[in-house]
């Protein structure tokens, strides 16, 4: 039997006893054995991964928009080159994740169709606008910082292709966070106007960044099952607290404040307590009523549609080259040389 190595391909298991398969799967997960694409897995595990990984992939490519907004207006060639490299990285991260998602037996086209139709989500953080240059710094420091806090444990996710994609992504994310921090530091130590601009950006991005960790543990629909499957390693609130603890001293060195009057050290717990999060705002943005929901999706659809002729032309060219190769007496598939 010939199958692709990276494709989910479950029919080979059809004859086996489903209870035995489920028991073997549970035991493998409990033993920290990575699940690979062609292994048997429960349908719900597969569905959960497709939902989470697709959302993650969509977030990477939608996330290019708020930052790309500033490429043409970056204040120096250095900052412009950095921002272009970062936005290019986000595209790359999307591609790693789409490939990993496809190993679960879904097609790239189907994933993009669902994004464009609003049937699969992306992180709601990208529905906020980038109003000033300082927002590029705040996104790098806070949004990428929150993403790293979420993503580092995903490097040990039970599903092999997802874990491997996350290892690559995490390596590249740390540049994103540091460039944002450096950018904010330059503004914070600049003129009073620049300092105020940096503070304003942090004021606007702080709370949405905390929302990136998802709803509180007692309201999180998928958390318990995902933890049992070792897709998730830590609860939403645990990761959120970890992020807050990391940010407070970083903000002090920046010379900026975090917009939370209730933020204070909890001696007993050895961490910072933060004030209440406006979950009504979170739900509204999730529902499609954030400042930029419509704009982001429209832009994404337009890019896809206006690129259609390029994709078609590439296919036509490839077909023509194959024909020419055949006519010249070469094998049709001899392209894949070393």
């Amino acid at each position: 039997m010939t199958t692709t190595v990276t494709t989910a391909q479950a029919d080979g298991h059809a004859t086996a006893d489903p209870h035995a398969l489920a028991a073997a799967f549970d035991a493998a997960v409990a033993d920290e054995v990575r699940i690979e694409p062609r292994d048997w897995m429960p349908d719900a595990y597969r569905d959960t991964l497709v939902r989470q990984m697709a959302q993650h992939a969509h977030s990477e490519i939608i996330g290019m928009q708020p930052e790309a907004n500033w490429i043409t207006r970056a204040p120096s060639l250095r900052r412009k080159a950095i921002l272009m490299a970062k936005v290019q990285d986000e595209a790359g991260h999307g591609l790693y994740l789409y490939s990993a998602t496809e190993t679960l037996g879904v097609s790239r086209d189907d994933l993009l169709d669902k994004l464009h139709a609003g049937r699969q989500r992306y992180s709601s953080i990208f529905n906020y606008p980038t109003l000033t240059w300082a927002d590029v710094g705040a996104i790098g420091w806070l949004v990428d910082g929150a993403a790293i806090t979420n993503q580092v444990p995903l490097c040990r996710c039970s599903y092999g292709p997802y874990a491997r994609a996350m290892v690559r992504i995490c390596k590249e994310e740390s540049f994103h966070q540091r460039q944002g921090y450096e950018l904010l530091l330059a503004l914070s130590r600049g003129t009073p106007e620049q300092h105020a601009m940096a503070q304003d950006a942090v004021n606007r991005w702080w709370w949405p960044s905390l929302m990136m960790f998802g709803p509180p543990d007692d309201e999180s629909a998928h958390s318990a099952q995902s933890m049992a499957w070792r897709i998730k390693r830590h609860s939403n609130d645990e990761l959120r607290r970890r992020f807050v603890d990391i940010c407070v001293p970083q903000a002090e060195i920046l010379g900026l404040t975090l917009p939370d009057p209730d933020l204070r050290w909890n001696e007993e717990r050895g961490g910072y307590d933060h004030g209440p999060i406006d979950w009504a705002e979170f739900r509204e943005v999730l529902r499609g009523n954030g400042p930029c929901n419509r704009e982001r999706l429209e832009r994404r659809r337009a890019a896809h549609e206006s690129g259609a002729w390029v994709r078609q032309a590439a296919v036509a060219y490839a077909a023509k080259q194959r024909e020419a190769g055949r006519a010249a007496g070469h094998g049709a598939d001899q392209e894949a040389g070393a």
Partner: protein
Amino acid sequence: MSEGQRQEGGGWPLWEVFVRSRRGLSHTHAGSLHAPDAEMALRNARDLYTRRAEGVSIWVVPSAAVTASSPDEKDPFFEPAADKAYRHPTFYAIPEGVKHL
């Protein structure tokens, strides 16, 4: 899902990418991507997997051309290697003090 279904991506088939990180090392699997032909697969692979000088050489192989052992056959397929401890040097008892062995 068959490999045929996977090629619907706008007609762009899937390619497996192997990268040699530096001379002296073998190519290792880096990931996969869609591309209309081998030349574009190479270019896309360069942009996707070597943005930070991770490689000095890239192979791209149509995913459909890879033949894999079935996960179901795993145990019997690899079983012949499991009970042949005598293929490992530690199987042999050597008196203490014997050098260079």
